[in-house]
């Protein structure tokens, strides 16, 4: 693209950070507040789409050398592995557990195995959405 939209690019450079932060908040807050892996993943994907709109495909790929197909596959594997891990403790498949620990900076924090599962959902959603969008947009008609 020869024409460069400076306003758009500059705005998006800032916006992407805000959106990314929000999406990660949504992901981790999902346990107690509205949100979760699915919506978090979609918001992250929308940030990436904004990058694609402002820049071209190749620059975004240089900036973020991620194969989204692999990311999606990894997400599915993470989700399945959280399920199988419960076999180690002789409990049924996909049994989730949680505990409270005192972390140095955060104080009393809840650690839940469900968050790892949600992370898998998050990765799958990003990977799939971006795979669909990039493969459609790269299509040479």
């Amino acid at each position, binding site marked *: 693209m020869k024409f460069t939209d400076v306003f758009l690019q500059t705005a998006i450079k800032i916006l992407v950070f805000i959106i990314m932060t929000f999406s990660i908040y*949504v992901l981790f807050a*999902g*346990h*107690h*507040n*509205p*949100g*979760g*892996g*699915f*919506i978090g993943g*979609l*918001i992250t994907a*929308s940030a990436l789409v904004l990058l694609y709109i402002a820049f071209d495909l190749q620059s975004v790929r240089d900036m973020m050398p991620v194969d989204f*197909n692999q990311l*999606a*596959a990894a*997400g*599915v594997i993470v*989700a*399945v592995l959280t*399920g199988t891990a419960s076999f180690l403790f002789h409990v049924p*498949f*996909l049994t*989730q557990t*949680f505990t409270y620990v005192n972390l140095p900076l955060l104080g009393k924090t*809840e650690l*839940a195995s*469900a*968050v790892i*599962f*949600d992370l*898998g*959902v998050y990765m*799958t*959603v990003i*990977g*799939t*959405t971006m*795979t*669909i969008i990039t*493969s*459609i947009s*790269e*299509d*040479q008609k």
Partner: protein
Amino acid sequence: MYLLYIAILIPFFSIPFIPLLYKYVHRIHTGWFVLVIPVLLLFFFARYYFVQQTIEPLILSVPWIPSLNIHFTIYLDSLSLLFVLLITGVGTLVVFYSIFYMSKDREKLHLFYAYLMLFMGAMLGSVLSDNLLVLYAFWELTSVSSFLLIAFWYHRKRSRYGAQKSMFITMSGGFSMLLGFIMLYVTSGTFSIRELILLGDQISQHSLFIPAMYFIFLGVFTKSAQFPFHIWLPDAMEAPTPISAYLHSATMVKAGVYLVARLTPIFGGHQEWFWTITIIGLITLFIGSLTAIRQSDLKALLAFSTISQIGLIMSLLGIGSMSLNNQYSDSSLLFAGATLAAIFHLINHSIFKGCLFMMIGILDHETGTRDIRRLGGLIHVMPVSFTLTMIGSFSMAGLPPFSGFLSKEMFFSGALTASRTMGSWFIFIPIIAWVASIFTFVYCMILIFKVFIGPYKPLPLDRKPHEAPFGMLVSPMILASLVVILFFFPNLIASSLLEPTVKAILPQAFANGREWHVHISAWHGFNTELLMTMGIIILGMLLYKYLTKFRNIYESIPLKFTLNQAYDNGLVAMERISGKLIRFYMYGSTPLYLSYLFVFVIVIVGGSLFLLNGFIFDLSNNAPIELYEYMLGFTIVAAAIYMVFTKSRLISIIAVSVIGYIVSLFFVIFRAPDLALTQLVVETISTALFLLCFYFLPRVSKYVTPMKLNIRNAIIAIGVGMTLTLIGLSTQEHHLFDSIAEYYKDSYTLAGAKNIVNAILVDFRAFDTMLEIVVLFAAGVGIYTLIKLRHTGRKDQ
């Protein structure tokens, strides 16, 4: 004792070795190895015959599928033994004959003998089985092997046609027979024929008893080529001649006769049984003999003669079954004479028909044609063949001094017994029998005189005719000598085989210890039967002399109305109708299929709701509707109506996304923040994808004319909408049990999560979520491959 099982299974076990022998021992004709099997079996079974003069029924049972009451039970009584001896005896001779008939170098002998052994084993199994389902299994195996053997020369069109036809007819008959057997099982709770006989009158009151009988009849009549199912047999004559001699004269077509005889103790006393078998048998007898005269192909002539002779046997069995009827219990022994005649004629027919087929095969083999019009005057070249054919034909015509004479006399006395005992109205039975016998006589004369007597025609024949090799003549010689021996010494088999067989077919008639002994004699004084035979000879001679005139009348009957025509047209019509039927509803248009689906939804779901009175309207517990709910509701309805009636696709897409966003607003109102968030984002993405699709639409169809109002679609759409609305309204107040939502409200202590929705998604019911992300992933991979691999696909082209 288990030798019997081995005997049945030996033919099957031998099948793998036949191709090996054919391949590695090519110097010796494979038939010599195969010959060992029927010979062994013949000796094995003959031992039962000679060792035990009056054979005691032998029962062996091996559980096969005990939970379904299916046992591989062998029941060997004299009826079975009679058939077994026929199968193995004629089998031996046929295999021996085929060694000389089938060329070692040109034919695929391994297939021929493998099919033949398959048939022999199946036939042994069906006559020895006591369990109806096992019998059915073997019965179908005979159909399959017969199919394979008819199409042995599969490069010929006629062979394939004949094989297909016989397959269709016998298989459909076999299938209905299976239905009959199952009905019998329903009435009685057993598949065993012996137990069915013991149950006796108990099962005959059941409403399924008569239907079962008729379903079994279908199987019997198709297999035994009875009217109107006889049409497959003449077309089966495309098989190699040894096969025609074995399957289509001596054994397979008698399987139906066997079954009738076997089931007579169960059904015999009933009028329906008597009427059906007798009438069908007589019609077949008449039509078969009448049609045989007009044939010009020798094998076709023999095929029709087989049809008519089996009709004769059937009608005799039908008459004989009357001895089980209480009405005629006084004269039951007279009727038993008819059964005796049936059994005796069955043996005779197997012998002389086997002999005749082999002779036709020799004629074909030595002259290169089977056409009567091209043959003649062969008596000088082939004297031995002439003698043997003459013996066979005269036996078939019922002339002394051949065994056919005896059984024909017995046939007449059986028919006369029926008319005398059951009232003068039944006089039609002997009359039809007599007329059919005249025709039989005529075609027997054709067989001898047209072929062997008259001027010798050396020119049109393909080969120079000469007497057949000795090896080929051995088998028909043995059969022909049996014909003569049975005439002079019929009592050789009378007390040992015929008498116990008749007693096995009609056990109830002999139950009270009545004395009855078979004594067959060639001469029993001047009586009606003898006069009838004389009449046959005189009228037959006259008819033969004026055959050409007779034929002219006969052939003026148009061919259009024959059963073959009906069969062929029926097949064509069936294909055409089913094609039309499929074209009628399978247009390949998706909207049409969708309308089928939706109509079914309306009819089945709405209809069952209507029939079961499922409509409940109770709006009293509903929450009050707020103002903004009204507003959103009206907007969504307006957007939906606009979407349907707009002229532009772009506006439709926008209208759809309006609906989507309002739905997410509804989620907000109904306090589902997670859903609202997700719905918002997903709606945005799908709208973007819609726009993408819209952008790439071909230019021609982008500007659409307004959607045509399709009345049918409108009605269906309104119907589906109303059905689903009614269901929704009805289910609202219809709770079978309390909601389980109370349990999840405790999610903070259970899962450590304050967000119940998320806790359900990732903890309580995480399995669903896991599979949903797999679905998502699969969709992504699908789109990726669809787009990326499209190019490589094009490159390949």
